[in-house]
Structures are given as structure tokens and as C-alpha cells.
């Protein structure tokens, strides 16, 4: 039987929703599911983790070095835990998971499966390659531990609130390296919904034209309670911060509604929105490739369309 260890992820003192998605992936693998919470002090994160349904137990690893999340200090702790009979170690395919898990895999001497999008069996998975334009079905040798990251957009969020897994303190006796110092993290997300978990996302591309013009995208998003995303061109041009980028190298999202203003639809951008429920594209060029994938397309000038949309929505 499988025994899956999931590296929980938290931000701002709260458990990330992506952790509950990794739990859904682990349920497809089957067996026991343990969540590892790495913190500097006992806090509410372990309780949140314990409440996710399907979780067998929560392992809390308290270490002062965990005040700053870094791959170099996290990886040896994960490796130490993994030695306790686990068949799988998973983390969300967030920037944290992508940073740390290959380091874990190499320390364990095993390959990694990146961006698991479907579970075909305990050792068989589907994952996207070529910016999602190809899916490969891969298989690992059943004789060793599986290390993987979970593509959050492919899995539902395991329900929370009805679980009551026991919380155990796990002591880890490994020396942690001192060569990596976290200086700071700058975030400028306001009160808008989180891009990765929002049910509605409004995005702007190069067509928006400037940082000032992006205000109309933000205002429209606020009006419909949407998170705001952007194309790489919009970020590169300085219209908005990097954490808003959607696509192959940005965020992979799966909102119910995605509205793209002034985005051409390059494959690298589309890689980030393939799982959206309904894609709406507004573009002044009727030949823009985004219309090939949009569920609803409207040829028009975004500066005219947005005010009309706002008026129509009252």
C-alpha cells in the first residue's frame, strides 16, 4: 500500500489551497496521506492541515530555520522524513515546490515527476510537456520512492473542515546548511482575490498599452470580483508585476471564467489557461490566435469594450 508524504505550503500564516489539491492527487494514488508542516513555531497551520479530509496524520516539524522557507534548508528535512517508509513525496507545483522538490529527489538519488496532471496508477502519471501541447504518460520503477510536484490546476481542492487527523511533532536530527540567507520578499498584491485560486480572472496583455491604462483592467476586475492576470509582454513592458504573469513560465490557472483583453494567444500564454471553464477573448485583430481557443470571442477595441461591459453589468 502506498504511503504518501505531502509537503504542506503556507503563506501569511495560512495553509495554501494548493496543498489541498495535492491531497486530491494523493487520494488518486491511494493509501495513507501524511502532511508535513515545516514551521519555526507551533501555529494554526497544522490544525488547518489536520482538517483537510483524507489526511491520515499531520507531522509538524518545528525548527527555527523554518522561519524562512528556502530549498537548501527545507530539502534535508524532507529527505529525513521521507526515510520513514514513504512510497511517495509530493508538493504543489508552486514556485516553492518547484524549487525544493528536485533538490529532494537528487538527495534521494531518484528522478522527479514534474507537474503531475493525472494519476494512472501508483507509479504512472500524466504530465504536460512542450508548454502543454503534448501530454506524456510516464512510469517510474516501483522499487524506489516517487518524488513529484502536482499541477494544481488539474486537481480539485480536497474539502476542508471535516477531517480530524492527529498532529504529531516530528523531531529531525539533520544539520542544515548556512550558505543561503533569505533577505526579503516583496509582494504588492492588494485585496484582490488570489490569482491561482480565483473563480474569475481578468487579464491584460500588450494591447492594454501602459501601466496607467492597466487601471481600467483592475477596475473592471474589481467590479466582477475577479483576480487580475497578465501576459508576459505586459509584465516585461512594466505594466504590472511579475507575479501576475499567466502561462508556461507564469501561473497555471483554472478559473471558471477567464477574460483576456488585448492578448494575442501565444502558446506559452495558452499553456496557463487550458483548464479554464470559459475563455473569453477581446482583441481588435480578428486573426488573433486566441480566438482559436476562446469559448467566446469579440473583435473590438478593449478601451471601448470595457466601458460597455461595465455599463451592461450595471
Amino acid at each position: 500500500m502506498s504511503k504518501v508524504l505531502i509537503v504542506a505550503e503556507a503563506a501569511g500564516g495560512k495553509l495554501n489551497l494548493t496543498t489541498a489539491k495535492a491531497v486530491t492527487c494523493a487520494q488518486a494514488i491511494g493509501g495513507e496521506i501524511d502532511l508535513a508542516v515545516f514551521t519555526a513555531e507551533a501555529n494554526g497551520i497544522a490544525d488547518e492541515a489536520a482538517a483537510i479530509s483524507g489526511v491520515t496524520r499531520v507531522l509538524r516539524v518545528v525548527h527555527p530555520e523554518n522561519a524562512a522557507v528556502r530549498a537548501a534548508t527545507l530539502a534535508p528535512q524532507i529527505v529525513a522524513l521521507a526515510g520513514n517508509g514513504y512510497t511517495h513525496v509530493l508538493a504543489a507545483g508552486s514556485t516553492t515546490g518547484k524549487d525544493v522538490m528536485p533538490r529532494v529527489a537528487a538527495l534521494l538519488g531518484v528522478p522527479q515527476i514534474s507537474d503531475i496532471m493525472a494519476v494512472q496508477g501508483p507509479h504512472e502519471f500524466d504530465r504536460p510537456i512542450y508548454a502543454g501541447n503534448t501530454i506524456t504518460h510516464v512510469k517510474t520503477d516501483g522499487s524506489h520512492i516517487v518524488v513529484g510536484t502536482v499541477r494544481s490546476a488539474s486537481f480539485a481542492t480536497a474539502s476542508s473542515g471535516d477531517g480530524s487527523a492527529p498532529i504529531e511533532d516530528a523531531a529531525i536530527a539533520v544539520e542544515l546548511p548556512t550558505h543561503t540567507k533569505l533577505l526579503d520578499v516583496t509582494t504588492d498584491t492588494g485585496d484582490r482575490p488570489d490569482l491561482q485560486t480565483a473563480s474569475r480572472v481578468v487579464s491584460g496583455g500588450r494591447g492594454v498599452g501602459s501601466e496607467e491604462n492597466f487601471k481600467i483592467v483592475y477596475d473592471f476586475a474589481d467590479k466582477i470580483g475577479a483576480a487580475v492576470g497578465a501576459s508576459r509582454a505586459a509584465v516585461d513592458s512594466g505594466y504590472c508585476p511579475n507575479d501576475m504573469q499567466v502561462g508556461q513560465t507564469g501561473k497555471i490557472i483554472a478559473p471558471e471564467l477567464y477574460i483576456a483583453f488585448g492578448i494575442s494567444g501565444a502558446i506559452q500564454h495558452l499553456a496557463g489557461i487550458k483548464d479554464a471553464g470559459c475563455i473569453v477573448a477581446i482583441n481588435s485583430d480578428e486573426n488573433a490566435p486566441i480566438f482559436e481557443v476562446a469559448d467566446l470571442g469579440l473583435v473590438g477595441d478593449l478601451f471601448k469594450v470595457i466601458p460597455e461591459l461595465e455599463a451592461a453589468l450595471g
Partner: protein
Amino acid sequence: MKILVPIKRVVDYNVRIRVKSDGSGVDLNGVKMSVNPFDEIAMEEALRLREAGVASEVVPLTIGTAKAEDQLRTCLAMGGDRALHVVTDAEIQPLQAARILAELAKREEAGLVLMGKQAIDDDNGQTPQMLAALLGWPQATFASEVKIADGKARVHREVDSGIESLEISLPAVISADLRLNEPRFIKLPDIMKAKRKPLDKLELSEFDIAVPTVEIVKTSPPPTRAAGRMVKEVSELVAVLKDKGLI
């Protein structure tokens, strides 16, 4: 300080790839190949560090087919000093690549390995972190700014929540994100010059790559989305969205 820049020959990012009908992989016949875009950015950063006097030598290297020499020559034309080529037709997986790169980093006594954050063919995004683990070196992935002084690197990293600033001691592995820099254009005389720069060929058998690998069972095209529809006016768009309960 010597900087190693591992680069991979991949399908050009502009190519619309096709999956072979027998599920055995992607059709690479006659397809344009290039230096992985992230590796080109890593190469540019290494050259800027040399130009700033921080590095003394920039060595691009690849593990790949004989044809990957084209991509190494491109890196030499950008300004690389000399190149290393581990020649093989075998499909090399990230942990294996990391083992080879670790061996070469030691042999070359590299002070820094600067590489791409992911290869855009397999989208694994693993090799830099694995390399750092094998060497016991610090890592700074997804870099959008690199500053080096006093045996340390200060790196801005693009993370989900914004920008993270990390300080690591050297030697280290740094992986490049898209906004680290804009690679220079190559001039014709530089292409000529690159042909005469040293390029050492190495045999795969020199390296121990006996590690478990992932078996590729089948490759298939992604599920296609149902064809959408065009609407003529905003009012029609709003009506459909309301009808679907999306707004």
C-alpha cells in the same frame, strides 16, 4: 572565477509541434532547433559578469547529439570563451544531466553554474536544483537579478508571491528566469570567430549516470477544447455569460 553555462538544444519556441500518430513522441523532422531560451538568458548573464570583471571565463556546455554543436557555436558567437560537448544520442534525463554537470563543475573548478530554469521541450525544471544538491552548493532558481560581490551572490527570484531576495555564498547554481536580461544579437563576424574557438568533445562513457530513470510510456496530443463562438456585440457577450451563470 569561471562560469559554466549548461545549455540544451531544443525545438525553437515559435514552432508548433506535432505529436507522432503512434504516440512515440514529438515529430522533430525538419523542425527548427535553437538554444533553450532560458539558457540563452543564462549565457547573456554570464557574459555580462565577465564584462563587469566578476568572471574570468565563460564556458557553455551541452550534453546532446552531434548537431547540438550548432547551439554551442551560437553560445561561442555570443561571446563564450570555449565550449564542452558531451556527445550522445541517448535521451538524457535531468538527474543524469545533473550527475554529468556536477562532475564537470568539479573538474573545471567552476565558481558559478548559470543555467536556464527549465528546458522548454520537457518542461522539467529540475536540473539546476539537482545539480546544486549533488554538489552540496546553494541554489537560487528563477533569477531576475544577479549581483555578485565578496564571494556572495544576491539574487532576486521570481516567486508566486512576488520577488524574493536571496543571498548565497559561492560556488553556487543560479537558474535564469525570463526577465533576467535580454540576450544580445549575434553579429556575423562573431559567428566566423566562433568557428575557431576551442570546443572539446567528451564521451558519455566518462560519466557515471547509473541512476533510476523515468520510462516514457506514451505521448499524446492534449485534449482539444470544443470550438467556441464569436459574438458581435458586448450585449450578446453579457447575455451568454449571464445565461451560463458565469457573471
